[in-house]
Structures are given as structure tokens and as C-alpha cells.
């Protein structure tokens, strides 16, 4: 484990802990951006700068702003701080979360990727990414595009006022 990875992991963990511990929803969303930043740094560290910056562009700006708007529009007031953060379901939640985490760890250790990591000679270039997207992965790309278009049209129809 290199020093860079340790720093990045510390940043991600700080953000994640803040996300689950902080009391105000907006603070939680802001610490979520720290997690996204950490993940982007991890991508850049793993020689995938395009992916890292695209993550910042899409998640940190667009998705976070979307979440913030949702939070502000659906909630009239902030939840007051008197309420205890430990609800009755917290033990069950802890068990479920712990088992999911254990399952993930187990799966990742079993995966062939986790052994035998090879260094790339050069960072994945944007050109090769684009070529792959246009040849090998053109069908998934088109399917995703169709799905996004359908979602967009659906959102417009939901938001559209009834003309009659």
C-alpha cells in the first residue's frame, strides 16, 4: 500500500464518515462530494485521468447539484438537532450493512482481478477509449443512450403541466 493510496483512502473515509454522521442533509451531500473527489483521485492515480475528471465533471458538479436541489425542494425545514441519531432500526441496519460489507470483501478477494495486478506501460489514452466505445462497445453505448433519452422524455412528461 503506497502513501498516495493511504492519503486517498483517508480522504474517502473522512467523506464517508461525514456523510453518515453529520446531522444536516446539506452537510451530508457536501461530504459526499469529498468521497467523489477521493474516488476521482484514485482513478487518476490508477492512470485513468479521463475517467477521473469525467467523474468530477458529472458527479461532483451535476449529480451533487441535483441532489442538493432535491433536498432543498422536498424539505421545508432542516431536521432539528434534538432528535437522537440512533433510531430503533440502527442495530438491524448495522447487521445488514456489516454483512453486505463482508460479502463485498469476500467477492473482491475471490475475483481474479485482485491478484496479479499489472502496470500499464502508458495511461489509457482518450483515443483508445473512444475507439473501443465506437467499435467493441457500440451496442451498450447505444442502449445507454436510448435509456437516457427515455428517462429524459419521461421526466419531461412527468413535469409537464396538463394542458386541458
Amino acid at each position: 500500500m503506497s502513501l498516495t493510496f493511504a492519503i486517498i483512502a483517508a480522504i474517502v473515509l473522512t467523506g464517508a464518515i461525514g456523510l453518515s454522521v453529520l446531522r444536516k442533509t446539506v452537510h451530508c451531500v457536501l461530504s459526499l462530494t469529498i468521497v467523489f473527489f477521493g474516488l476521482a483521485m484514485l482513478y487518476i492515480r490508477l492512470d485513468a485521468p479521463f475517467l477521473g475528471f469525467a467523474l468530477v465533471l458529472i458527479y461532483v458538479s451535476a449529480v451533487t447539484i441535483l441532489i442538493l436541489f432535491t433536498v432543498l425542494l422536498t424539505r421545508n425545514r432542516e431536521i432539528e438537532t434534538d432528535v437522537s441519531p440512533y433510531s430503533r432500526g440502527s442495530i438491524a441496519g448495522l447487521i445488514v450493512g456489516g454483512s453486505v460489507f463482508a460479502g463485498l470483501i469476500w467477492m473482491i478477494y475471490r475475483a481474479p482481478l485482485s491478484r496479479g495486478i499489472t502496470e500499464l506501460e502508458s495511461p489509457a489514452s482518450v483515443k483508445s477509449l473512444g475507439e473501443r466505445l465506437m467499435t467493441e462497445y457500440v451496442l451498450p453505448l447505444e442502449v445507454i443512450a436510448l435509456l437516457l433519452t427515455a428517462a429524459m422524455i419521461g421526466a419531461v412528461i412527468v413535469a409537464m403541466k396538463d394542458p386541458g
Partner: protein
Amino acid sequence: MEVLLLSIKEQLVALFPAVLQPLAGHLLSITPVLGVFAGCFALTTVLERKALGRIQNRFGPNRVGPAGLLQPVADGLKMIFKEDIVPLKADRTVHFLAPVLLATTALLVFSVIPFGQAPDGRHLVPVDLEVGLIFFFAVGSLAELAVFMAGWSSRNKYAMLGAMRAIAQMISYEAPMLLSVLTVVLISGSLSLVDIVGTQAGGFWHWHVLTPWGAAAFLLFLTAALAESNRSPFDIPEAESEIIAGHMIEYSGFKYALFFLAEYLGLFAMTSLAVTLFLGGFHPPIPQLAFVPGPIWFFGKFVVIIAFFIWIRGTLPRLRMDQLLQLAWKFMLPMAVVLLIVAAAWHRISLTWGPVFGWLFCSPPVIMAYLMLGRGGAGKKGGPRVYRYVN
């Protein structure tokens, strides 16, 4: 000049022990960028006030220093010595972090702009990223988050309204801006700003602005840049007569100065990108003028665009919110998509038959699209505003 600057940097870096050399190298790249653009900020504020004064038939600042040139020094001193007021109900941490984040992102985007090239091929660029353009927009889009933080943490309805307006505007204009930039990426086949500048070397007829798609994309980009940096005629996020100063209302002293600085630095970043993408960056207009150093050409073009922005600010009235969003989504976005297709066609046609045929085939669709989107859209929705609640 480029060789001189690069060798000064090498000499200074060599003074440091080997462990610190990468760090020292980056610091030495950062310092001039910081100094030059902060200086540009100071000069632009005074120039802008003077130019606006002349447009409005008055003198503008002319008391501090020769011809009022030391006005920014006086302003800066005043800002530093002002009391830093934080509202009682404000969220102190977020309130503090917002201007810091905004100023940081405004400075970070300059790290991928190439300012010049030495004869041996080395570039005068802080970091030559392969995905420089994505970096620029990724970091630039963090400003939205900072604006939201400022608006939300102030606990003031005007601040929140201003932040909401600013974010809606930034998101709306980011789409046409990215699409208009994509035309250049399509032609140069690279996301690295150094490579994009490289494709425009050797005279002004190679500049991207002198193509049918490039000219239109340049204008779209400038419009979107005005909107992104909240300048007139797109300054409704901080409209003084409606919501006082928008998300900056609860900031005083040097924090307010930081917002002001970030706004101008954002404008400079957009201008630098426009120069780099469309106006050939640091390349001279004709190759015979190559003895003049690249940074001088770069800043020459930069000043021309800044002067254009000041002129626009003094001339045009503010748009309404609905006009603003209509312009972005109904005119600029479809126009940018058309330009993308035209640029692809230009690439094919001018490669096989030469640029004359490219102009012949590519300019009609651009003009047609402009007429149909501009005039056609205005015919249906435009016209005088109807005041439903008054009548």
C-alpha cells in the same frame, strides 16, 4: 522569451535538493500564473470602470495615482481592513469554505492553458494534461458547488435566490458551451490544449475561428462564457436592483473580494480558453512575426476579447430569466448540435476537396440553422411581454 523563462525555471529548480525538485518545479510554474492573472484582475477592474465611465459619459476613477491606475490598490486595502462579518444564523464552516473553494477552482483552471512555445518544442504550460479540456471544465464546474455553498450557508433568502439563479444559469449555459468546444475537439482530434494549439500553427488562416463552424462556435462560446461568469447581460444572479448581490450578499471584507476575484478569474479563464481554442493561442497571425514571443501574442488576443466583454457590459441591458433560459435551451443548444455536424462535414470535405469547397458546402447550413432557430423561435414565443396579473 520562452527559452529565457524555461531556463530561469530550470536554474532555480536545480538549486533545490532532488527530493523537493518536482514540488519546486510546480511552485515555480504556479507563481507567474498567480502573479500575472492577479495583476490582470487589478488592471481590468480599473480599465473596466474607466471604459464604463466613458460609455456612460463620465470620467470613471481618476484620483488615485496617475490617471487612477492605483485605484485597485486602494480598493484592495479597503477590503482587507473591512470588518469580516458572519451572520449569526449562518453555517460558519460552509460560509467560510465557499469563497475559498471558488477562488481555488478559479485559479486551478489556468494550469492547463499553454502560454507559449520554445523553439525546441517545449511548451510554456504549467501542466500538459492529455485530458486538459476535460480538466478545465471539471474544475470549472466546481464553481456551481461553491456558489450553492455560499447561498445556502448565508441563511438569507436573497442569497439563496441568487445562488439558485446562478446555478440554473451555469448549468444551462454549460451544455452549449461544452458542445461548441467539442467542434474544436472533433477537428483537432485531441483533448490536450497543447495539441489543439499545435493544429492552429502557421498563420491566421489556420485558426479555427476562420471556418464556418468555428466562427459560429466562437460566438456561441463567448456568449456562454459571459453567462458562466455572471456578467452583463447575463448578470441576473447578482442583479443589484432585484436581489442586491445574490449569493455574495452576506459576505464582507476580504471574502467579498475573493468572490469578486473569482468572478474575474473565471472570466479570464474562459477568455484564455477562447484564445487557445479558436484564435490560435500564442501563435502569431502570420509566420513572419514569429520573432515576437508567444505570451505577448497570447495576451494581445486576450486583451482584445476582454475589451469586447467590457464593451458588451456597457452596451446591453440585462435579460429576463425566461429569455435567458430560452436563449440557452432553444437557440444555443440546437445551434451547437448543428455546428457539431457541420464540423464533421467540414473535416471530410476540406480534407478531400480543399477549404474552398468546405466553405461552399458548410456555410449554408450554419446560416440556415441561425435563421431558422433565431427568427423561427422569435416568431412564436417572442414579442412584447404579457403581464398576466396586472391586466
